[in-house]
């Protein structure tokens, strides 16, 4: 839940909203508070001036009851908390609250403190210093007080009462205290409204974000996830519908495109695979079923021939013969169908095939400014091959080379030469079995792209598998278990556990134990069990001696292949051409060359170019 994009977005936007709204609210409430207080201050000041001026006459007359009356009348206003006049000694002379009259205020009291903070009381005060905000009691509402000094004037000391002497500057102080209850309530309500606004804003933003994320992100992403699941489970015909025009829509379209391409490619691959396995099946079925059918058909037709005088028997036998013939046609149909995938091999001149391949893609090459350099030996032996398939191989390789040059152009060098190679290090062991005939080839574990030979090994209490490199004489075996020199090694068939070690024989090069495998109808293959020793011996292959091959090299001056990709390029579906390729070209090349008993290898230097080397066995004699 917290990992969802919608939640993260809501969280981030909510946080931003809270920050913005709180800064806004703080500034807003502060300025509002200031405006309200200024208003109160103005009002209080005015009020105190009013009081002062309305009592002025009575003061000159020293009409004390009248003054008190005015003070009390004004003090009746509920908004006024208090209104009082103190004389110079701090004694309250008039007050709306009569109980306070006669009280002497401490100079530290709220109202007095401003002027009496220093030893010498201040005589003139700016308005800001005459006001104060305080609480009478910690639980009570705030109040706003303003003091207004009553200054001595000539009329005061010339008045008849002679209450004040001429030397005095300040005769007393008028103190007006106004309750801030309303203002506080206003501010509190403003704060509450702000909080409410913030909450509503966050909720609304969350809602909007949630809605749009759900529609614009969640839905297409879920559709994509569902589609990848479908594809992962093997349904390549799945396509995402109702894709939008935004980035996710583009992703979905590209995904649809990819699955479609994959499905086409898989169809091709499955098709060729199906044909190949059907071919094998048909061959097996034909051979296995046709023999028993021969028994049935010969005997039944023989009986039919002898049963000419027995109509009843004849009729039954005719059924057997007829139905057996029908079975024969079914098997034949199967064989005919399977035959379509079998390469039609003839003796071909490899130079002719190369020239024909070049002819097919001539235009394409000249468009890309690719120069072809031909280095063909003159007396090349012929090879047995399906010319069309081999031509396809060259077309694929040359096209790949041209594609690797982008638009810069470059050179592709084609060379063909006859070579003679000893079987050691060249010949692939395609079949291997234990003495009981169990197949040891493991197509699930490939070394250099070839199915390896799997043996079960146990040494020093550890058990595991050894995968031998299938090329005779290649030491790149894969040991899944550590072999300890001192402890006894057992090596056996993974199926029946029969030992594969050759008793009483040791490796002529390092003295380790020696294994022996049957290569069906091609003798025995022996080799050294030591991981670091390359000794192997295959009598049948050695007896045949050096074999003649035609080696064809296709070298381009293109961008090369990074090291990490070199091993993968022959895998089906591996492509560096993005949407342009199916990733099957080189897999098909591999399949064809393998079908012709040949080998293909690749060398590449990034930035300099790639060379494919093909070896096809030459025709004998």
């Amino acid at each position: 839940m917290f990992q969802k994009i919608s939640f993260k977005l809501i969280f981030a936007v909510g946080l931003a909203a809270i920050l913005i709204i709180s800064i806004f609210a703080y500034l807003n409430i502060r300025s509002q508070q200031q405006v309200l207080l200024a208003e109160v201050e103005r009002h209080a000041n005015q009020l105190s001036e009013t009081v002062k001026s309305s009592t002025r006459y009575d003061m000159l007359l020293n009409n004390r009851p009248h003054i008190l009356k005015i003070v009390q009348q004004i003090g009746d206003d509920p908004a006024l908390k208090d209104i009082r006049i103190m004389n110079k000694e701090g004694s309250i002379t008039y007050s709306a609250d009569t109980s306070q009259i006669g009280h002497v205020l401490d100079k530290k009291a709220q109202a007095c403190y401003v002027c009496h903070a220093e030893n010498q009381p201040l005589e003139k005060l700016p308005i800001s210093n005459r006001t104060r905000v305080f609480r009478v009691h910690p639980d009570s509402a705030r109040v706003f007080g303003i003091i207004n000094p009553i200054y001595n004037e000539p009329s005061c000391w010339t008045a008849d009462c002679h209450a004040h002497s001429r030397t005095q500057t300040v005769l007393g102080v008028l103190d007006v205290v106004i309750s801030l209850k309303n203002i506080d309530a206003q501010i509190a309500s403003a704060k509450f409204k702000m909080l409410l606004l913030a909450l509503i804003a966050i909720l609304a933003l969350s809602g909007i974000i949630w809605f749009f994320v759900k529609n614009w992100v969640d839905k297409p992403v879920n559709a994509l996830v569902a589609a990848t699941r479908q594809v992962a489970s093997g349904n390549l015909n799945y396509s995402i519908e109702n894709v939008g025009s935004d980035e996710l829509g583009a992703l979905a379209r590209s995904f649809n495109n990819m699955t479609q391409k994959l499905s086409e490619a898989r169809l091709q691959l499955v098709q060729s695979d199906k044909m190949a396995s059907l071919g094998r099946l048909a061959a097996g079925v034909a051979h296995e079923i046709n023999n028993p059918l021969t028994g049935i058909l010969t005997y039944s037709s023989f009986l039919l021939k002898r049963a000419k005088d027995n109509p009843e028997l004849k009729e039954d036998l005719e059924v057997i013969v007829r139905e057996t013939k029908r079975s024969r046609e079914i098997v034949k149909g199967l064989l005919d169908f399977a035959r379509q995938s079998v390469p039609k091999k003839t003796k071909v001149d490899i130079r002719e095939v190369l020239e024909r391949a070049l002819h097919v893609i001539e235009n394409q090459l000249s468009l890309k400014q690719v120069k072809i350099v031909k280095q063909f030996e003159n007396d090349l032996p012929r090879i047995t091959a399906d010319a069309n398939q081999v031509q396809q191989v060259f077309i694929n390789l040359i096209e790949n080379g041209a594609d690797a040059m982008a638009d810069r152009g470059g050179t592709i060098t084609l060379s063909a030469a006859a070579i003679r190679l000893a079987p050691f290090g060249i010949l692939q062991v395609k079949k291997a079995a234990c003495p009981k005939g169990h197949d040891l080839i493991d197509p699930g574990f490939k070394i250099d792209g070839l199915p390896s030979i799997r043996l079960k090994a146990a040494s020093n209490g550890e058990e595991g598998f050894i995968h031998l490199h299938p090329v005779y004489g290649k030491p790149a075996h894969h040991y899944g278990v550590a072999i300890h020199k001192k402890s006894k090694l057992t090596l056996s068939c993974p199926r029946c556990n029969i030992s594969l070690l050759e008793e009483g024989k040791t490796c002529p090069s390092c003295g380790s134990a020696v294994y022996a495998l049957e290569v069906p109808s091609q003798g025995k293959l022996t080799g050294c069990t030591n991981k670091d020793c390359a000794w192997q011996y295959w009598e049948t292959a050695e007896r045949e001696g050096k074999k003649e091959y035609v080696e064809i090299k296709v070298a381009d001056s293109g961008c090369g292949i990074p090291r990490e990709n070199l091993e993968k390029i022959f895998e089906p579906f591996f492509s560096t051409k993005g949407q342009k390729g199916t990733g099957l070209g080189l897999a098909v090349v591999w399949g064809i060359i393998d079908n012709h008993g040949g080998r293909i290898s690749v060398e590449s230097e990034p930035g300099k170019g790639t060379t494919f080397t093909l070896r096809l066995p030459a025709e004998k004699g």
Partner: protein
Amino acid sequence: MKKQTDILVIDDEPVVLDAVVKLCSAEGFQVDAAVHALEGLKKIAQSSYRLIVCDIMMPDMDGFQFLERLAEKHIATPVIITTGYSTVENAVKSLYLGAIDFLAKPFTVEELLSTVRRGMKYQELSQSFNAAARERNDLYPVYVPCPPSYYRLGYTGWVNVESDGSVKTGLSDLFIKTLGGIRRIEFFEREEEIVQGNVCARVETEDQLIHNVLAPISGKILNFNETLSQNCALVEKDPYFRGWLYTVLPSDLEYELKHLTPCSSDRL
């Protein structure tokens, strides 16, 4: 003088071996059996046979290797190849390698016996041919070889490429001689596809046997020789020209011609 036996059967499948031995014995032939090619070669070294019937798929040495070995040893005994894996390639390859006939498994007793009879006849003809050659010191025409521009599938049928791209096919004189008297020829229909090495016609002979004719080339039948339906003796009189069987639109001529023997190579 080596012991003379009529037929040697080589097959790794006991059922087939027993059946062939039994049926041929019932026809009055002396039959010997071997379960693999090496044993067959051993038997051939010990006694002489008039005809060999051999399977293709066998352990150690297959039928093709067996044919090659016979050729190396200059043993002229005619060989009939049989196989359960009766692909065109196998049929054509065995005829190319010198087998006189190809018999797809499973076969009926009639198919087996007609093929064996032809084989026997072939052996007689080639012996009298050799004898005639030895006696007279010239090539007495026991049979007429096919014209040099023709191609042949084994010794059975011929193909001639016409100027319009179609091909004519027919039966070789030697094949007709091994048949004996032809009573009737059963053609396939026009427009039907025939496949090289597979049956393309049936010939009924005076001895009431039905012989399968293998197609020397694949393609669509354009026409068949209707005059042969009325007068099948024509094929015996003029097998290479007026006695043709089919005109065929070939499907893969260039590839298939490589597996046929050019008749020009017969005239040394």
